[in-house]
């Protein structure tokens, strides 16, 4: 893994074509699935926050409404370099025909992928405490980010991890984090605090305002993070999602309104500085 250092552009370039990775593991993580695939031909060092376009090699289509047709974008949760390639972990939840098919993958099946794509997270502002804020499935890119921040020697306070989930079953994804004890909030109070992860963030920022926030989660959560950080003058990097057909700037579908006009999340993001956004819950966000 390459550490999150002050490099010009946090991007590892991808091979210019789709390739087939082999599914090596499928595990339940509470209410989620963790798919592990061996990518023999891809770059070994994706950057935290980058994503891959995924499709099942076989049986992609013919589900509900004769879908899926397009690949689906997923941030990787972890990448492990090995003798035969890089093993990639993807966290997913079946919410539609694409995620249903990906969630049904078995070990040995082919996973068609393109990536790594997009711009990942940049290093925290010097001397600030990294605050990782994740909601639901959005915790995935924070897992490898937390690994990197831990592995990188820097004169700054250790990262804090704040996670929000619907229920205890979903909160099992907190167990993916290798270092540090994530603070939890759940909608139903079945794990950690009953409430929103943004309440944990507000308290953490009140206690330690010298922070850089890294957030990924559903659009309402990201908008709350954006507004809070804007009010307090805290730098925040948001990993956003929007309906995306290609992932490499071809379709112009995944635009987010910014002060500079529409930006394509797939090539100018998915991680964007919060101050560039008008709102993080823009039309089409999260789809």
């Amino acid at each position: 893994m390459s550490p999150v250092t002050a490099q010009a552009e946090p991007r590892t370039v991808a091979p210019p074509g789709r390739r087939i990775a082999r599914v090596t593991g499928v595990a339940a993580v509470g209410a989620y699935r963790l798919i592990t695939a061996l990518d023999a031909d891809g770059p070994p060092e994706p950057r935290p926050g980058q994503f891959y376009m995924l499709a099942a090699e076989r049986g992609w289509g013919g589900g509900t409404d004769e879908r899926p047709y397009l690949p689906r974008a997923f941030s990787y949760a972890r990448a492990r370099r090995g003798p035969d390639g890089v093993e990639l972990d993807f966290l997913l939840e079946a919410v539609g025909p694409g995620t249903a098919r990906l969630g049904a993958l078995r070990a040995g099946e082919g996973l068609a992928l393109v990536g790594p794509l997009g711009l990942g997270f940049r290093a925290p502002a010097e001397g600030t405490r990294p605050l990782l804020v994740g909601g639901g499935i959005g915790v995935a890119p924070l897992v490898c980010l937390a690994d990197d921040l831990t592995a990188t020697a820097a004169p700054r306070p250790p990262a804090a991890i704040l996670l929000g989930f619907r229920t205890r079953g979903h909160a099992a994804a907190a167990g993916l984090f290798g270092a540090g004890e994530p603070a939890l909030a759940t909608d139903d109070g079945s794990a950690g605090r009953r409430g929103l992860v943004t309440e944990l963030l507000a308290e953490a920022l009140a206690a330690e305002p010298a922070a850089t926030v890294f957030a990924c989660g559903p659009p309402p959560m990201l908008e709350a993070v954006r507004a809070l950080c804007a009010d307090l003058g805290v730098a925040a990097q948001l990993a956003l999602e929007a309906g995306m057909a290609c992932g490499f700037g071809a379709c112009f579908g995944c635009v987010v309104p910014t002060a500079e006009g529409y930006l394509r999340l797939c090539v100018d993001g998915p991680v964007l500085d919060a101050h560039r956004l008008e709102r993080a819950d823009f039309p089409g966000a999260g789809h």
Partner: protein
Amino acid sequence: MDLCGVSLAGPVLNGSGTFDAIAARRAFGDALLERFPFHAFVSKTITIAPRQGNPPPRLWEAPAGLINSIGLPNKGLEGFLARDLPELADLPVPLIVSVMGFSREELATLVARAGEREEVAMIELNVSCPNVETGLVMGADPAETARAVDRVRPLAAKPLIVKLSPNANEPAAVAAAAESAGADAVSLINTVKGMALAPGTGRPWLGGVTGGLSGPAVRAIALEQVRAVAERVEIPVIGMGGIAAGEHAAAFLSAGAVCIAVGTESFRDPGAGRRIAAELVAGKAASAA
């Protein structure tokens, strides 16, 4: 092979607006140039003034296809010539610039300015837009298309391709009118007009309300229109619409196309053009054996 006097290493193009070679180079680095997916590259459509494009959401996954409502975002003619063209000149294949004018005079300016650049091998006229002076969609009407081609034909020494809309009553009649007015080639199909509703609301999903359907869902429509047009005109036909494999490309060539273009399949696989070209060659070898 030869397309209107321009030498191509093979018959596979991209559909305009389905591949941004500049953004793709950021994602894939110089390996994109070494393994470039197409034998000629067609730019996104350029307009006189810069355009932001339509508000999101812009995409809807349809059964075996995609509805898009992008709205032709581009840097405008001057921005394109100053910033994009130098980068596109790095591509290892001939460059075809797609242009759209909201009047014949706009179209004339675009053709003249793009056509004088040596980096530009050919020009494609995207006529799937309303003429603000007449209210008619240029490409929907044979006479309107002929007037547009007639106006711009003397302004460029470069070959002119007219991109036909499948939403015209009779695309073959539009193609014949374009040919009579001096077009060097026609390409088809553009996307088929469509829309989607946001689940459970009854309201349009797309920010632009309506969009264009592409992908395998339109392949049968495209194949029929390509055949009808190829029977009607002498000029080369560039066929596209849901081509996702060498056998689909071969079908379009059998229907009378000289070249084919890959569009939505590139969204699923950025290397699709190369794969389809290879499958096409392998298919020919197999049928010859």
